């Protein structure tokens, strides 16, 4: 039985499709007058967020509560970590209080994996974002939202076959990009990465993606344009030249948005840095931006994951 959700590589196509099918059910629950089910009553979910994140934490919070689970929030800044207690000690303290799952976000890659090796049998670890490595629930909710838009409810055999997804921005430092690539390609979509060479990982020759530096050329061929954040620090580091240069080549400007086909959609994991990856007015005016739908589906996807790991007793291949 699947114990943890650490990265999407661990799931095969059937596993991803099962989660997406389950998400359909939880989207429906979210639309009810009382969007709550007793499925995880009596279970406790601990949110261990070592890195600040309001949106993801709230999303997991709501998801757990809609399943009637209890939630413990452990945030690093106010914790004993500052007094020198190790992560392992903190995990053991939580275990002693009686929990069923730990949702972890950390700025260092691999921490959820390490925690999964320390917890007792029966406690599930869910990766809510580790360093540059993975953000599996984001990948799932992005794929679900795209599927919902183009194909309708996921059903038992969700597929993105025939769709072309473009991911633009700082791929190297983006765990969202890595998980998106996993989810989209597993479901059959074609993925192209568009970024300056210094913002791509060193060796991606074995990745199932295409790479381009010519955004103008790729845009008309896309069904989905996935915008990723680019932080100003990259300029200070010497990874990119001036901001103006980056915007010239890689930003979704008023001029560029006209190159998109009239069925193409735009996704963004949030929060948007207006003026860098996209011109603010473009995002406001474009008719097919899935950002908000991503957020509401995010709750349903996380409910599906929590239910699968803590409640269903099902085998997840």
């Amino acid at each position, binding site marked *: 039985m699947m114990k943890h959700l650490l990265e999407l590589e661990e799931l095969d196509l059937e596993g991803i499709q099962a989660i997406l099918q389950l998400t359909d*059910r939880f989207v*429906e629950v979210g639309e009810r*007058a*009382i969007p709550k089910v007793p499925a*995880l009553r009596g279970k406790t979910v601990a949110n261990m967020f070592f890195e600040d994140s309001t949106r993801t934490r709230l999303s997991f919070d709501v998801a757990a509560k809609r399943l009637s689970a209890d939630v413990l929030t452990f945030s690093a800044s106010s914790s004993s970590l500052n007094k020198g207690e190790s992560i392992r000690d903190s995990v053991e303290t939580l275990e002693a209080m009686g929990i069923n799952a730990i949702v972890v976000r950390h700025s260092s890659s691999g921490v959820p994996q390490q925690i999964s090796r320390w917890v007792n049998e029966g406690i599930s670890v869910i990766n809510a974002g580790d360093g540059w490595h993975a953000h599996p629930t984001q990948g799932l909710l992005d794929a679900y939202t795209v599927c919902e838009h183009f194909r309708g409810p996921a059903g*038992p055999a969700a597929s993105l076959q025939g769709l072309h997804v473009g991911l633009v921005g700082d791929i190297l430092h983006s765990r969202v990009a890595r998980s998106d690539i996993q989810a989209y390609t597993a479901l059959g979509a074609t993925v192209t990465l568009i970024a300056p060479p210094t913002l791509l990982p060193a060796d991606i020759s074995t990745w199932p993606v295409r790479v381009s530096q010519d955004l103008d050329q790729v845009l008309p061929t896309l069904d989905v344009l996935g915008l990723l954040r680019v932080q100003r620090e990259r300029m200070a580091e010497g990874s990119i030249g001036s901001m103006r240069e980056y915007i010239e080549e890689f930003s979704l400007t008023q001029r560029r948005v006209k190159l998109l086909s009239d069925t193409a959609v735009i996704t963004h994991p949030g929060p948007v840095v207006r003026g860098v990856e996209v011109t603010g007015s473009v995002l406001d005016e474009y008719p097919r931006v899935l950002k908000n739908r991503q957020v509401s589906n995010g709750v349903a996807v996380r409910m599906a994951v929590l239910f699968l790991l*803590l409640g*269903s*007793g*099902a085998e997840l291949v």
Partner: protein
Amino acid sequence: MADRERRMTPPFGGVFVATSTILDQAQVHRALTRISHEIIEKNRGLDNIVLVALQTGGVQVAEHIAQLLFEIEGVDVPTGTIDVALYRDDIGLRPVMPEAETTIPVDLTAKTVVLVDDVLFTGRTIRAALDALNDFGRPRAVQLAVVIDRGHRELPIRPDFVGKNLPTRREEVVDVNPEGVLLGVMRK
């Protein structure tokens, strides 16, 4: 046959092997016709009646009853479906997945809901359904129609409308399908 029935009967899972036929297709039709008349009679007409079928075993039964109600009274009774997987009290004890749709087309407040299922066994599924219904409004009343009542109740639940009472042993399985009702066992 209902996944539920299979899951609730030892040896949990396996292949259904029939040992006898309880009702043939014609007999099922007659039983459902009688039930439809009973529903109309008990509720003095079909005002404010909503049929809610339990996934997956009650769906075809409810469609059949809705069709019969239309033939008898000329009324199109609103019909919904409900998957109670998320409300079960044995979550985590055995595989439970909400695989089927829940669609309730109307607000249930002040309505009389007739829950429809194929087989009534321990009563736990119906208890879960009652919980679930509460999340869709506050019905004025809830009634229960089943094709077969096979006994072995574990909760104080009783049906209002029954096709046939069938005493069974715990390890036997009842399969209700469009061709009729079969009694059998599960073989691994």
